[in-house]
């Protein structure tokens, strides 16, 4: 299916989903749906580097938090522009407060730059060391944020979520606005993943994943390609994190850098399937919804335990993930 048709279909599905949610008129749907969509973005972003390219990133939480804390920092700037924007920077004053889409873009930009930098430091090494380095990086960033008082440090920061937002002629409850933003981000992430798959870049990723040495010998500029993957993946994760402070109202490092993000970003693609855009989507929707149910009915700790167990089970028993299992079934029958 050509890309434009894919993109339009995905947009249509997203519009339908949004319309349905508005009609049902249950706020919980928006709150829960936001989380699931957030995971769609994170899982798809992770998979670009992990599933397509073969480099495991355990530091998803760091990129997510970079996006979140960029939004917090800019929000604080906006709350007190005269204090922080002096001299030449005062020219920027009229821009504040920044709209949410702008925050998303800036968060993505900064997270992308961090992804580039981190990749440059560590991608020359074996995939194993890269994975460990991502874990290390997550801790470094968490320590930096904890020590940065401007964004609240370990005490955290409060963001007051507006009640409504007016876009042109429409007035939306803010939670619906957040849901819409995340929906669009999910479409963007899926579109990027799909575009990569069928492109020259997709072949490069696959060759690097299968045999990096042979890929180099075939003329693939492996370092540059891997840097593209880390930058893109990091940027998407940062974009997913930017609206988070507005969603949750109170951001503190333990939550933003939480283990839940790291394990889910890995588990969802590995359970759903890593070879195409469908896997992370399936994994995120299934696992995300499951988690919403378990967290509410049982507890959030048990919920994470289930995710961990499912991850190990799937990795050991069904390496191709759900999508892979379905394909095999269809191919046989």
């Amino acid at each position, binding site marked *: 299916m050509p890309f434009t048709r894919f993109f339009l279909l995905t947009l249509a599905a997203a519009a339908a989903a949004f319309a349905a949610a508005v009609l049902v008129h249950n706020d919980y749907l928006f709150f829960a749906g936001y989380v699931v969509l957030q995971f769609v973005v994170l899982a798809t972003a992770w998979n670009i580097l992990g599933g397509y390219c073969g480099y495991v990133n355990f530091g998803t939480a760091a990129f997510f938090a970079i996006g979140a804390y960029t939004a917090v920092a800019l929000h604080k700037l906006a709350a007190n522009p005269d204090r922080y924007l002096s001299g030449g920077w005062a020219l920027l004053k009229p821009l504040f407060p920044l709209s949410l889409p702008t925050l998303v873009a800036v968060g993505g930009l900064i997270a992308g730059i961090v992804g580039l930098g981190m990749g440059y430091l560590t991608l020359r090494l074996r995939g194993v060391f890269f994975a460990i380095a991502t874990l290390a990086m997550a801790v470094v960033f968490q320590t930096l944020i904890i020590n940065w008082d401007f964004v609240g440090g370990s005490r955290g920061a409060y963001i007051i979520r507006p009640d409504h937002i007016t876009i042109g002629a429409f007035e939306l409850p803010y939670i619906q606005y957040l849901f819409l933003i995340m929906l669009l981000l999910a479409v963007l992430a899926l579109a990027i993943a799909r575009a990569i798959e069928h492109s*020259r870049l997709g*072949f*490069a990723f*696959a*060759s690097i*994943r*299968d*045999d990096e*040495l*042979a*890929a*180099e*010998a*075939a*003329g*693939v*500029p*492996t*370092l540059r390609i891997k840097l593209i993957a880390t930058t893109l993946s990091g940027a998407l994760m940062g974009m997913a994190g930017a609206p988070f402070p507005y969603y949750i109202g109170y951001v503190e490092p333990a939550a933003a850098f939480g283990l839940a993000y790291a394990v889910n970003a890995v588990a969802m693609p590995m359970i759903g399937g890593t*070879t195409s855009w469908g896997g992370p989507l399936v994994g995120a929707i299934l696992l995300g919804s499951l988690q919403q149910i378990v967290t509410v009915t049982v507890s959030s700790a048990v919920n994470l335990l289930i995710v961990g167990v499912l991850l190990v089970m799937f990795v050991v028993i069904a390496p191709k993930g759900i999508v892979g299992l379905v394909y095999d079934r269809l191919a046989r029958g």
Partner: protein
Amino acid sequence: MSDPLLQVTSLGKRFGGFVALDGIDLEVLPGERLGLIGPNGSGKSTLVNCVCGSLHNETGSVRFAGQLLDGLPAHRRTHIGLARSFQLPRPFISLSVADNLRVPLLYTVRRRALLRRSAHELDERCIELLAQVGLDGKARRMTSDLTQVEMRKLELARAMAAEPRLLIADEVMAGLSHSEIEDIITLLLRLNEQGVTVIMIEHIMRAVMRFSQRLAVLVSGRKIADGIPEDVVNNPEVVSAYLGQ
């Protein structure tokens, strides 16, 4: 007398305490057919790895078409015209057999071409290359469906796909039948006629003798002979170190 296409000077490589290459000097003229032989573990593949950039040599230098290759990453060396097959096949297992060739076409050949080739043209080129090694029947299959012998042919095809100026064929004939060996020799000879310089690394003496204009012998990381094949195979040191086995 033309300048050498490949010029290896005092190349040295150690792995910890083990000396894999001990000051290798080697020159290959443009259009030449060089055979490289020697016992297992003598450093032939290590030499190829250093020349092509998969390994870093500690001492010595490599020049290709006059350009010093020090520090140049492997993919850049492929871009300037150096291609090799791997002795132990390293296929892209998640891609089909044809798509394995697409990678060098997309990243080496298309880079040089001024025209943009369509996906269809790339596909045709992949099939064409596969046909030259007799693998066109399995173009759509996955590499896991290939036999060891077929994987070596794929290795050769993948190196050829990069349209190199110098092709290093590292033991592509292991396990091939008599007629298959003839086919490969014919293929390499034809490539050579089209202007590709070829270095053939083999244990199958018959093939090496037929193909090579010049023969070099590596034993324990040192080059012990380099000259006309007839002279080299009668060299007593070569006989005792390798051929007598």
